[in-house]
């Protein structure tokens, strides 16, 4: 009788999750992190898995990938069964033992990464071991605003990134600035985020087996791209102007004539087709200084964390989600949903070559929209020419080092040489630290 107050305490503790197994412990339960269901690409692929394995309780934890949450869960021994993350981050997780080797998993499910795009596979392979399966595949291209170029006597067909001197001259001719305010960007090289691509165009890899941030060719690329920006009103005004763009609206920077030409991620072609289908642009490949097409690849990958409760089921989900048949099913669902809204289907760019071939042969529906008909061809032509930065155990620190270095140059705080030398020192230190100091 005197012990009755203990009851609510026990119930409270049990209710707080202090007792009993978590949902992830149950058999046939599969938990994911970093994968959302924003459109048919996701929902239709999940539906394929659910149809195949109806007995599995698949729990999609909506929201973007949260590194802190992921690593904490691995450290606490309570990770999700799968993660869906930026491929650039996988190397760091692999080096720290936070994700599992997928070699035997892929073998069991007949997933042959030889059929995947090389750049994507490179991003998920660390020390010769595969730690992830690539999902989407994005590249970078040149987007030209035809009316603005023509008004200024520039033929879009002649504009390229091969001749850096000529590009700087055209950029200066197209740019407009008055009273410290930028009114039009002539050419946007998208630095600091695209600096690895500009270095590659100049023949240098920012990252090989080790960082080469102070390579003279990298320094030259940084000097060239930052000078381009500084000649167009200076970085502060340039960036503030760019921040005002309605990039995802009908009056985006190309429609409103705020930009004449820019380097951009491939997904923006789809955005333009959906929001401003009549926009008059030319999509062209970016080129290196010898005139060869050049692009940098990006995208996400699926991986299985260390300590995942159901690695076999997780592996099955990965194999299903990335199979060519599943991608085609998702592409059809996406196309049909867009068709109901009277919109075109611009195709789906995956890292799986077979999936892409079938999607563009069987499902692609550009509905006569020029930006797609012209742009998609270019995108397809550069897919297999893409390069990707190799995985690194200190990827986040390295990217931060070189982007901060370019920012310092953009603001005129350091010369390109000084800044990249500092970035190199920081990168070396970051790699030493990952090794345990």
């Amino acid at each position, binding site marked *: 009788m005197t012990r009755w107050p203990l009851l609510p305490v026990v119930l409270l503790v049990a209710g707080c999750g202090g007792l009993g197994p978590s949902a992830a412990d149950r058999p046939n339960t599969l938990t994911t992190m970093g994968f959302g269901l924003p459109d048919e690409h996701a929902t239709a692929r999940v539906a394929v898995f659910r149809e195949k394995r109806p007995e599995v309780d698949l729990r999609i934890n909506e929201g973007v990938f949260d590194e802190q949450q992921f*690593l904490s869960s691995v*450290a606490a021994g309570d990770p999700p069964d799968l993660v869906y993350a930026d491929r650039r981050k996988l190397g760091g997780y692999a080096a720290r033992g936070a994700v599992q080797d997928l070699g035997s998993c892929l073998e069991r499910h007949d997933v042959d990464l030889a059929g995947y795009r090389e750049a994507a596979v490179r991003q998920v392979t660390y020390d010769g071991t595969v730690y992830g399966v690539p999902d989407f595949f994005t590249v970078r291209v040149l987007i030209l605003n035809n009316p603005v170029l023509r008004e200024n006597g520039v033929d879009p067909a002649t504009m390229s990134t091969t001749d850096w001197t000529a590009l700087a001259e055209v950029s200066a001719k197209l740019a407009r600035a008055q*009273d410290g305010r930028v009114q039009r960007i002539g050419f946007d090289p998208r630095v600091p985020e695209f600096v690895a691509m500009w270095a590659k165009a100049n023949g240098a890899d920012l990252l090989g087996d080790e960082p080469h941030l102070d390579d003279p060719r990298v320094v030259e690329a940084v000097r060239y791209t930052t000078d381009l920006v500084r000649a167009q009103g200076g*970085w502060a005004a340039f960036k503030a102007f760019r921040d005002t763009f309605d990039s995802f609206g009908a009056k985006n920077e190309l429609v409103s004539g705020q930009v004449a030409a820019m380097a951009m991620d491939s997904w923006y072609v789809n955005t333009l087709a959906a929001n401003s289908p009549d926009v008059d642009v030319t999509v062209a490949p970016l080129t290196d200084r010898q005139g060869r097409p050049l692009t940098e690849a990006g995208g996400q990958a699926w991986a299985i964390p260390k300590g995942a409760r159901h690695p076999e089921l997780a592996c099955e989900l990965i194999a299903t989600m990335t199979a060519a048949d599943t991608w085609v099913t998702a592409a059809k669902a996406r196309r049909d949903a867009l068709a109901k809204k009277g919109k075109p289907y611009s195709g789906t760019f995956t890292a799986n070559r077979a999936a892409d071939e079938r999607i563009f042969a069987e499902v692609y529906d550009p509905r006569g929209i020029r930006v797609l008909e012209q742009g998609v061809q270019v995108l397809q032509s550069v897919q297999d020419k893409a390069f990707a930065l190799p995985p690194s155990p*200190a990827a986040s620190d390295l990217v931060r080092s070189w982007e901060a270095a370019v920012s310092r140059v953009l603001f005129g705080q350091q010369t390109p040489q000084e800044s990249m030398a500092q970035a190199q020192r920081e990168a070396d230190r970051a790699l030493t630290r990952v090794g345990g100091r």
Partner: protein
Amino acid sequence: MTSAREARAGWLFVLPWVFGFLLLTAGPMLYSLYLSFTHYDLLKPARFTGLTNYREILTDDRAATALWNTVFFTLLHVPLQIVLALGLASLLRRAGRSAGFFRTVLFLPTMTPPVALAALFLLLLNGQNGAINAVLGWFGFTGPQWTTDPAWIKPGLVLMSLWTVGSTAVLYLAALTRVPGERYEAARLDGASPWRQFWHITLPGISGTIYFTLIVNTIASLQVFTEAYTMFFGARPSTPAEGDAALFYVIYLFQEAFGSLRMGYASALAWVLFVVIAAITALQVRLSRDYVHYEDRS
């Protein structure tokens, strides 16, 4: 006997807080102190490295930048917040029957979630077409690039931080109403000017509240994080294009902990901040003995 029972009852009532403090505050703090002497990346066991992390802080340029940014923000934000809040409270005191309405209006911005506030101010402060520069333009001034020029990013953040001045103003208003009216009457009879009344009656009368807000605002400013992180770091995986101008100390600490997985170093950074805050607070407490006037001690 009664007092022993009272003491027991008192402990019983505060016991949940004591448990909560030991479990959720003191425990993690001690663990963080231990981690500050280790190399720990969350995934492998912590390895003892002695004072290495603390030595590294002394030579870390980004830590120095972050500390300077934070101190700069605090030095601008705290006095401005206090002066502006005091001015608003003085006006409110004269508002008569409509004071309640204005008090609510002033306090409402405090309810805005910091993330929404950051998004709003990114638009307002834009150097190209932001409303703040448009207003400056009406008076013939060319506004700066608040969100992209490193020299103006911190002043822009200070400007934004004044959005929540209402909560401090409401505290001052309460304090002002407690200053006895007969003191002002006597001063007026003696021919004291409004400035002398403010300096010799109002300020000593509310010095306790000013002291409280000084300490609270200083500590909060030294831990500033959310707005700057949302505006300049949140959407990006790496360094913002604005460089390190908005890199506040806690943001750097967060980056080191969860971006670079250096939990030991981040713990050391946290303890350095703790010591800095404790030292500044101790100095403020020392100075308060000379400048703060308490009614019950006079």
